[in-house]
């Protein structure tokens, strides 16, 4: 039996297998948002004054904004006073070694397939695990430090590397960028910080797992990756949440900075709780992700496999500032039942000879809606810039929708943007062909969609490709036949 598939078969039996709640004591802020809450969070984290000022500025700016409504998604108004903005599992403040992680927490991560100890060390993936608001543990830290690589939680970075944080935070996604970015800047709780020094090739995948556990909490993580000249890093984030009847808000900000000839590969396997079959509960995932190719010949590549969340609003983007820089966006977004996704990318060509490539694969089933929204902008100085976009949609059944909104702006006559789009349905004849070879319909659908999404799956690091394939199959369980 194909390894990927045997597990699919086991997992399709359970609906959302990450939907358990861990009973650990939490240290929480009172519900609601105010300047006091912002101060509370900052104080909890023992932050320097400048960080607090920054948060307060963002908060005050946020108060002047209105929630955006241009995306092709519908949801009831969010009551921002009904959310808990800070929740930390109670345990010793500073951990001296991995062995000090709360055993209940450790079991949580093991259930998620993330082992924080030796097992994972052997597989060569450095993990930072974030539960609710706080980073729990970062593995491999010392080994990475030997090469000058910093990989730690954002809270630690604020304490231990304030000059770096101060220099780069908000430099790609300013607090004034949009409603959710402003909110995040005010109340961000934790996230990961990576710094790769000049000429260093990070020897392992860096990985962060985010999990929302406590009830009524929002998760507002903030990730910042800086790759100095000639360096390389591959970073992966995974996300899960327990099943809840109410919707939970997730509004993250991710900033990437690549200097001359540096390369950042950022992969996401997003599996937040999507809500039940009737559309109750689930995570609202409103995320701002942006990278800047600051240096000449730099490269930023986003790869995302989006299967979870009730609503996804997310456009990982690249600003191609350095000449000859390259931006890539590879995406598979699956929606089933009543899920809604409005996702895509923005490629902003500023430098000469900049290149971008967009491959978006949308799969919709049930009553779901899946939209691709992309902007390719070629600025005046972007001589000889090139973009290629490929947006394919696959429909399962006739009650779901797929929409494509490509926007192309070309201000330089030597630059070229190409766009191709297709929409197809899984054919009865394809399913029957598989059936005739002994393959049941569920497995057949998994094979067909993995074939459809292959170009994107191939971009994922090996260990995660298998997991992602399983996820695709699980999230479409029961959608055909």
């Amino acid at each position, binding site marked *: *039996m*194909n390894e990927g*598939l*045997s597990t699919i078969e086991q997992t399709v039996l359970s609906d959302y297998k990450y939907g358990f709640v861990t009973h650990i004591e939490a240290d929480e802020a009172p519900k609601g948002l105010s300047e006091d809450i912002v101060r509370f969070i900052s104080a909890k984290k023992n932050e320097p004054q400048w960080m607090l000022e920054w948060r307060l500025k963002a908060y005050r700016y946020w108060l002047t904004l209105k929630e955006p409504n241009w995306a092709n998604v519908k949801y009831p108004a969010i009551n921002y006073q009904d959310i808990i903005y800070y929740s930390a599992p109670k345990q010793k403040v500073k951990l001296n070694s991995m062995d000090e992680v709360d055993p209940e927490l450790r079991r949580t991560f093991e259930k998620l397939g993330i082992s924080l100890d030796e097992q994972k060390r052997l597989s060569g993936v450095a993990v930072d695990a974030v539960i609710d608001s706080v980073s729990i543990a970062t593995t491999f830290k010392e080994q990475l430090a030997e090469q000058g690589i910093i990989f730690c939680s954002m809270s630690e970075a604020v304490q231990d590397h304030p000059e770096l944080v101060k220099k780069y935070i908000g430099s790609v996604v300013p607090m004034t960028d949009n409603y959710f970015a402003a909110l995040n800047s005010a109340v961000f709780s934790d996230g990961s910080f990576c710094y790769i020094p000049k000429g260093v090739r990070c020897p392992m995948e860096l990985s962060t797992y985010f999990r929302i556990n406590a009830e009524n909490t929002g998760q507002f993580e903030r990730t910042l990756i800086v790759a100095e000249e000639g360096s390389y890093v591959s970073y992966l984030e995974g996300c899960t949440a327990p099943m809840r009847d109410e919707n939970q808000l997730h509004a993250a900000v991710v900033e990437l900075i690549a200097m001359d000839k540096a390369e950042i590969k950022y992969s996401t396997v997003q599996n937040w709780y999507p809500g039940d079959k009737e559309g109750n509960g689930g995570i609202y995932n409103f995320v701002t992700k942006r990278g800047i190719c600051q240096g000449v010949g730099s490269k930023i590549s986003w790869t995302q496999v989006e299967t979870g969340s009730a609503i996804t609003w997310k456009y990982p983007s690249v600003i191609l500032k350095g000449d000859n820089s390259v931006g890539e966006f590879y995406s598979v977004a699956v929606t089933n039942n009543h899920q809604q996704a409005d996702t895509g990318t923005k490629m902003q060509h500023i430098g000469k000879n900049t290149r971008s490539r967009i491959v978006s694969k949308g799969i919709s089933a049930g009553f779901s809606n899946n939209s691709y929204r992309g902007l390719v902008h070629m600025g005046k100085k972007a001589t000889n810039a090139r973009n290629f976009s490929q947006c394919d949609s696959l429909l399962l059944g006739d009650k779901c929708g797929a929409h494509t909104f490509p926007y192309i702006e070309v201000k330089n006559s030597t630059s070229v943007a190409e766009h191709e789009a297709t929409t197809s349905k899984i*054919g*009865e*004849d*394809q399913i*029957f*062909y*598989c*059936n*005739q*070879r*002994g*393959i*049941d319909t569920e*497995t057949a659908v998994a*094979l*067909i969609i*993995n*074939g*459809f*999404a*292959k*170009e994107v799956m191939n971009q994922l690091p090996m260990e995660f490709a298998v997991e992602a394939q399983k996820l695709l199959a699980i999230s479409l369980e029961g959608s055909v036949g």
Partner: protein
Amino acid sequence: MLSIRNLHAGIEEKKILKGINLDIKPGEVHAIMGPNGSGKSTLASVLAGRADYEVLDGSVDFDGKDLLELSPEARAGEGLFLAFQYPVEIPGLSTTNFIKTAVNEVRKYRGQESLDAVAFLRLMKEKMAMMEIDQSLLSRPLNEGFSGGEKKRNEIFQMAMLEPKLAILDETDSGLDIDAIRIVANGVNKLRSKDNAVLLVTHYQRLLDYIVPDFVHVLYNGRIVKSGTKELALELEERGYDFIKSVVDAVEEA
């Protein structure tokens, strides 16, 4: 092995099969011939369990099991294989991965352990040699951009991998040049044994020079109107289907 009794089937309002009777025993090769539109592919599809076709009457027994009660994948598990007249394409899905899934799903149905990568590869190498098929074809996405001949050879290769009890080949020869026909026929002949059987659907008697049938049946307008040995195929070749048509139509009018 296979026993079809008074099988009536159709699609939407249209009746296509109008009372088929056919018995196939282990070790036998049967050929079904007939003009276009006579119902050959419909018969193959109904046996394989395609949902669009509705069985209106009759029964099919396959090794003691009521075939019509089984799902298409269970029929495959029981050892029924259909080489499609028009094999479908599945973009992006590697042919090897597809076949590996099929082999192991069928093994699971039969209560056998699944093959690991090494055992699977060994089996594949052996069958590739037997079927004279190239590795490069099998690493490509399933049937995507395959020529007509490559698709047909891929069907026969899958048949070799799955080792069915009953193989139904629906016009596997059409669109093949003579060399390709010879390779396909050789493959089929190598797979023949006293325990399995083949039902060849074909339009031309050409294939029957290479795979010699024990029985030949002529399907016309949803019925088997004539059965005989391989000489019947030669007679049809010589006199054409019009000869059958005129005889049958005359009888029906009378």
